[in-house]
């Protein structure tokens, strides 16, 4: 087992990883930018080193500085957390070259699933459905010199739309995070929107490339937590419901999903295991699916890292995922199989962001003038806040995750409501009230959630 792990991250996830390292008796090294000198992860770690100025590219993403600190502190492994370097295969290679374990999947896993087109190709060959559209075209059909899935002419657009059926989404290739999408319900609107979409893409992203995909209405975003060791043992720890999103950003997640039935659950989890096995995956990973209103499920992508929302799976399984991640990265065997895993009760996570929900979700950095997390039965808080901490403007706005666990979904919901009421954060605006609205929404209470949940207004 590792003696010392460098955590190449910040915020609540760095604190969360340090907690498990502490539980495992492993020393920790925190790295930080000058904006994070007084951050909790810096206080909680055994050693700490400043690695650069606030911009991530010059600190948390700076390979050389992080590797240097790992070497100087004799860390034998690096945990990349979520975001930042967590899916950076080049960084994983540098770690390997320096004989430092990258706590994550193999470089091959990172490369293959990191190339989203190749990932789709791989999963399609395996028999997993992809969202139909120009990008789901097989490699063999690509013309020379053409970028995968890019639709260049009106004729192509109409042909694809006819094949997959309306409505279709025209999406900017360089877009992402939900930006640059136009929806066409019939051929006329497609012809109208095609050039608009291209010129919008050009002006917004400097790249006019667009692709066309079946627009799945009332989609549900379901993901499966995979855990695999280096000895070909793969288990899933059940699925998570992540449909409640704002601009493609997850806000509230739960496990198990209230929106799918037992049969679909079994199929999706089976597909996820098959996918992970097909690429000899190791470490924790998540396979994301969209599910349409007819319960067809489509492979979206694989995240080859820990997810922010891993906590709900921890609450329902009792398994510390960061511990398992570290164990398998160190070469240990899982030591259990599906029959040893029990999904117990229901868990919900609310992401509390420093954002002004009343004002277009503008980031709201600043000094935390008061902080009191909720407590009591069934409540877990993962946060890096403390009274007097200053939330810097340079990073992700996630400042706390509240996790409620109960024997039933109903119990988890009432406990989460209580936790949101108790939560005290002064000095910055937060998304707390938005969560309170979601938890009062009748559709939510009935488990009727989809990715359009917030579009319709809470």
């Amino acid at each position, binding site marked *: 087992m590792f003696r010392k792990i460098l955590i190449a991250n910040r915020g609540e996830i760095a604190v969360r990883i340090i907690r498990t390292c502490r539980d495992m008796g492993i020393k920790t090294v925190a790295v930080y930018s*000058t904006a994070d000198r007084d951050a909790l992860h810096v206080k909680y770690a055994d050693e700490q080193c*400043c690695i*650069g100025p606030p911009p991530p590219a010059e600190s948390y993403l700076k390979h*050389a500085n992080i*590797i240097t600190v790992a070497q100087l502190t004799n860390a034998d492994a690096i945990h990349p957390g979520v975001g930042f370097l967590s899916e950076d295969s080049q960084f994983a290679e540098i770690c390997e070259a320096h004989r430092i374990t990258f706590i994550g999947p193999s470089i091959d896993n990172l490369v293959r699933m990191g190339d989203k087109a190749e990932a789709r190709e791989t999963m399609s060959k395996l028999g997993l459905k992809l969202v139909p559209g120009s990008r789901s075209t097989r490699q063999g059909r690509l013309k020379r010199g053409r970028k995968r899935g890019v639709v260049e002419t009106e004729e192509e657009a109409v042909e694809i739309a006819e094949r997959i059926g309306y409505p279709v989404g025209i999406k900017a290739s360089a877009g992402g995070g939900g930006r640059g999408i136009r929806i066409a319900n019939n051929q006329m609107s497609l012809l109208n929107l095609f050039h608009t979409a291209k010129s919008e893409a050009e002006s917004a992203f400097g790249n006019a490339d667009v692709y066309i995909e079946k627009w799945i209405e009332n989609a549900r975003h379901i993901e499966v937590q995979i855990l695999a060791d280096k000895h070909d043992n793969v288990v899933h720890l059940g699925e998570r419901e992540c449909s409640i999103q704002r601009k493609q950003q997850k806000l509230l997640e739960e496990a198990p999903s209230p929106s799918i039935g037992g049969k679909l659950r079994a199929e999706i989890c089976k597909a996820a295991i098959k996918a992970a096995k097909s690429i000899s995956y190791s470490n924790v990973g998540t396979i994301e699916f969209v599910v349409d209103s007819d319960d067809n499920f489509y492979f979206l992508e694989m995240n080859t890292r820990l997810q922010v929302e891993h906590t709900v799976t921890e609450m329902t399984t009792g398994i510390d995922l960061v511990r398992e991640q570290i164990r398998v990265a160190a070469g240990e065997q899982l030591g259990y199989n599906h029959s040893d895993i029990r999904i117990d009760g229901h868990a919900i996570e609310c992401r509390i962001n420093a954002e002004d929900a009343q004002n277009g979700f503008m980031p709201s950095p600043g000094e935390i003038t008061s902080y009191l997390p909720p407590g009591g039965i069934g409540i877990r808080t993962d946060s890096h806040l403390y009274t007097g901490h200053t939330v810097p403007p340079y990073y992700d706005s996630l400042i706390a995750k509240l996790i409620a666990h109960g024997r039933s979904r109903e119990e988890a919901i009432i406990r989460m409501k209580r936790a949101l009421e108790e939560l005290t954060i002064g000095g910055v605006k937060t998304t707390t009230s938005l969560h309170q609205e979601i938890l009062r929404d009748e559709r939510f209470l009935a488990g009727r959630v989809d990715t359009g949940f917030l579009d319709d207004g809470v």
Partner: protein
Amino acid sequence: MSEDKSISLELLNEVCDVMDDRQLTEVYLRDGEVTLRVRRESQTASAPSGAPQPAPSPSASTPVQSDHVEGEFINAPMPGVFYRSAAPDEPFFVNEGDIVSAEDTICLIEAMKIFNPIQPGFSCQIVEVVVENETVVEYDQPLFRIKRT
């Protein structure tokens, strides 16, 4: 915590003004994260005159966590090991009192087996070498106290 120390400094100056005006000998002020204690031996020093201010005028390279050392610093541009010479038996690049030009190498920082030469970027005098030879430095850690020439 106040990110900008100049706010505190401004506050200090303003408090001194008040002490002058009011002929005070001591002020202890605590407001949230800011704590300030100012003392003067007697109020005779009040002197609302145009006495020259010490003018700390810190440059951008002054480290935020300055241990109350006055002056201007050259800080580490990366984490690594600080070397004052090219090899153990070679002389130091610079010594205290030396005057160096913008392009002179004043130390090396070793990171990932690479020895990165560090230059001041402007001509200056080395007032003090703040860090021990061959020790680990963080990003932004003060290495040399200098005076611009």
